[in-house]
């Protein structure tokens, strides 16, 4: 094992690997930064290219696109409050506030450093603990997933605002919106009023751009600041004392993200929200979260990137892809004659370790590439608002349309934009709604699976066979109440 590892390290140190990985990282970052384009599409399109490359070049190339793309998504989230994926929703909350304060460069630097740190630590942890993780992954089935998702929603409700009743109402609204369309288990149409366009449900992208970006556009327009710039300066780079202050947060979020990555089906969105909630809960000044707190950016970005290491484990040890990104990687592995499965490490250990080491190198490379690109990106906000705002509107509409070329999505974008403006005026936070909407389908599916597994008698099923999941369900309201009380008490003091 050790010998294969050292061999793998030697194999990964190749100029062409580094060159193509850098290209992948840069391309991924650009694609990820454009709303409506997803990293997944970029990976699928470029997959055939990797067939013609050496495994230690082709697979790191794809991994580079993936890693670059995740960071790329946080660029529009921070600069123009336009999160392109659910994973960057938590980032945009404090990131955009920092941009408004003229500290966009700091926010982007923080996002980069914490992404890379979270990713690197979780990758190293994964390499060292790959077989224990593989064992842990097997302990989670649909009942456990349901319990953990329900707990996540309760934690979000308890920690996201001063008023948990308002948060709960918004979560309920989000859950209801996610129920619109064809029921994923039974195939029954719900709340569609016979409209075919609603049959496939409400897509995520118009909601994200509508409720987060359009209200910001509206507020600039209403204030009529056409000659001014959104902010006159891009601000300084991140300083060492600021980074040092965030180190505990980055560490906590990395641990949370890694743990979330082990549970199949949770993913980056839950990790980012949990990392953010935990940082807010641990902070001595929770009231600064949501008002432009660097720690908020660090918490979300470290957590959503730390998910990446463990999600590779079922792919490498069992040959089972847990999501679409790993499915594409499986295609790339198989095309290279590497057959992920129980014997991969015995037979191809050196190559696999080389790929894993390349993942770590990719992170370090990305620190450099990202650091050099950030000044270029952050200049965007110094454009005059009379030019920037039309640009943002164009990106909002073009991004929404390009995702699946359906004009109905544009109507939804406008609808959610209006809703976002009204909700803001009424002092309702839209984030719990978006989280309810995103997590709703997974939770519903897990619930349906649990009911199917139990043959309709879920109570005795939980008690006799799924005691772990049952305990999580019992503890959930208690955790929610304690978190809310604690945060509430501290906000009042401050």
């Amino acid at each position, binding site marked *: 094992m050790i010998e294969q590892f050292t061999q793998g390290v030697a194999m990964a140190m190749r100029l*062409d690997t580094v060159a193509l990985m850098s290209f992948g990282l840069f391309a991924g970052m650009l694609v990820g930064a454009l709303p409506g384009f997803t990293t997944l599409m970029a990976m699928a399109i470029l997959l055939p290219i990797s067939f*013609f490359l050496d495994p230690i070049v082709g697979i790191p190339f794809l991994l580079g696109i993936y890693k670059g793309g995740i960071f790329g998504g946080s660029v529009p989230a921070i600069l123009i409050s336009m999160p392109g994926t659910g994973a960057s929703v938590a980032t945009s909350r404090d990131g955009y506030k920092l941009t408004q304060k003229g500290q966009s460069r700091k926010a982007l630097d923080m996002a980069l450093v914490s992404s890379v740190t979270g990713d690197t630590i979780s990758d190293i942890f994964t390499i060292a603990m790959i077989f224990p993780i593989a064992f842990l992954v*097997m302990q989670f089935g649909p009942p456990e997933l349901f319990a953990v998702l329900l707990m996540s929603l309760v934690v979000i409700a308890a920690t996201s605002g001063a008023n948990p009743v308002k948060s709960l109402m918004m979560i309920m609204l989000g859950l209801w919106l996610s129920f619109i369309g064809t029921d994923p288990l039974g195939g029954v149409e719900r709340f569609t009023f016979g409209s075919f366009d609603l*049959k496939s449900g409400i897509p995520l992208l118009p909601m994200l751009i509508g409720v987060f970006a359009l209200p910001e556009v509206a507020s600039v327009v209403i204030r009529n600041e056409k000659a001014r710039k959104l902010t006159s300066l891009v601000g300084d780079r991140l300083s060492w004392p600021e980074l040092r202050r965030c180190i505990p947060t980055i560490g906590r979020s990395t641990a949370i993200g890694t743990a979330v990555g082990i549970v199949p089906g949770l993913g980056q969105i839950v990790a980012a929200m949990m990392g953010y909630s935990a940082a807010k809960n641990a902070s001595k000044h929770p009231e600064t979260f949501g008002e432009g707190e660097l720690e908020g950016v660090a918490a979300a970005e470290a957590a959503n990137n730390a998910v990446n290491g463990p999600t590779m484990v079922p792919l490498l040890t069992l040959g*089972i892809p847990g999501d679409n990104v790993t499915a594409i990687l499986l295609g790339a592995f198989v095309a290279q004659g590497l057959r992920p499965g129980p014997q991969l490490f015995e037979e191809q250990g050196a190559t696999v370790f080389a790929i894993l080491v390349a993942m770590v190198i990719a992170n370090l490379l990305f620190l450099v590439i990202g650091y050099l690109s950030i000044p270029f990106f952050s200049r965007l906000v110094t454009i005059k608002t009379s030019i920037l705002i039309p640009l943002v509107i164009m990106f909002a509409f073009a991004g929404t349309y390009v995702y699946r070329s359906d004009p109905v999505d544009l109507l939804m974008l406008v609808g959610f934009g209006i809703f976002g403006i009204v909700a803001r005026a009424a002092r309702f936070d839209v984030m719990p709604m978006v989280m309810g909407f995103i997590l709703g389908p997974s939770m519903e599916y897990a619930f349906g699976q649990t009911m199917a597994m139990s043959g309709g008698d879920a109570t005795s099923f939980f008690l006799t066979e799924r005691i772990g999941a049952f305990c999580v369900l019992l503890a959930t309201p208690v955790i929610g109440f304690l978190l809310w009380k604690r945060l509430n008490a501290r906000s009042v003091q401050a």
Partner: protein
Amino acid sequence: MLKQTLKTSLAAFALAAATIAGSTSSARAEYPEKPVTMVIPLGAGGSHDLNARVITSIMPTYLNQGMIVQLTPGAGGQKGTQEVARAKADGYKLLFTHNYIDMLQQYVENLPYDPMADFVPVARVNYAPTSVIVRADSPYQTFEDLVADAKANPGKVQMAHSGNWGAFFVPAAQVMQALDISLNLVPYQGGGPALQALLSGDADVTMAFPSALGEMLRAGEIRVLATAGDKRIYDDVPTFSEVGVEGDIGFMHRVVLAPKGTPTEVLDTLSAAFAKMFEDPTFIKLMNRLGESVDPLTGDEYQALRESQATAYKGLVADLTSN
């Protein structure tokens, strides 16, 4: 080594560039004079997506035009299918789908299109036969053991599948119908999670395609009890026919369809291009690398299969939804 890799990467980029730039080569007013879009009614990263990426990188050589993949998932495949059904029948918008979306859904739901009246098959690319699998430590040594247990304890055996009315649900239901047994069907979001449920012990039995289970089989983690069709895939494993399940059961056919009313010349051009591509050694090599086979059928041959699927699925759905 470096030089060689560089060369192959350059070649690969050139290939990609050619795919994108393929549109400039032909200027005659003859089909195809612009790139052809292939709509996939499924999500990114799935087996159809990966198959299509190989098709679109080879097709321009034979069609003299680029081919673009458009993923339009939603409503269990209906969204993308509807888009092609409503498209102009000029051969510039094709559908890359499978038999369950194509022929089964019409009996489960009210569709905004009529698959038989709105589409004509262009070609079948390949098909995948399912295998019934259990863990290596399972008490079921043979398919008969499984059937016997299911008969003795109706609805108790947990069968994981990849989603309702999907590629493993339908054959499972057809097996239940043919042998008069009852399994507890638990849906998972795809074949991967279903296989994981089998390995973790949540499920007693599941199904898988050969490309997905090769490694698990080699490592001795699972046992195959039966495979679809009437030709043995593994020497010591019986086929569905041998265990009493007859017919076109357990095959997922990946097919390219065109809107009905597409001019015959256009269909001929497309069929010819597909036929030539299926012979292309690079195409075969790339498909094999993905773990997929190449088993072409012409549009007419597949149309006969579609008609028999329609009859079989109609009976199946009527049977399943009657109680």
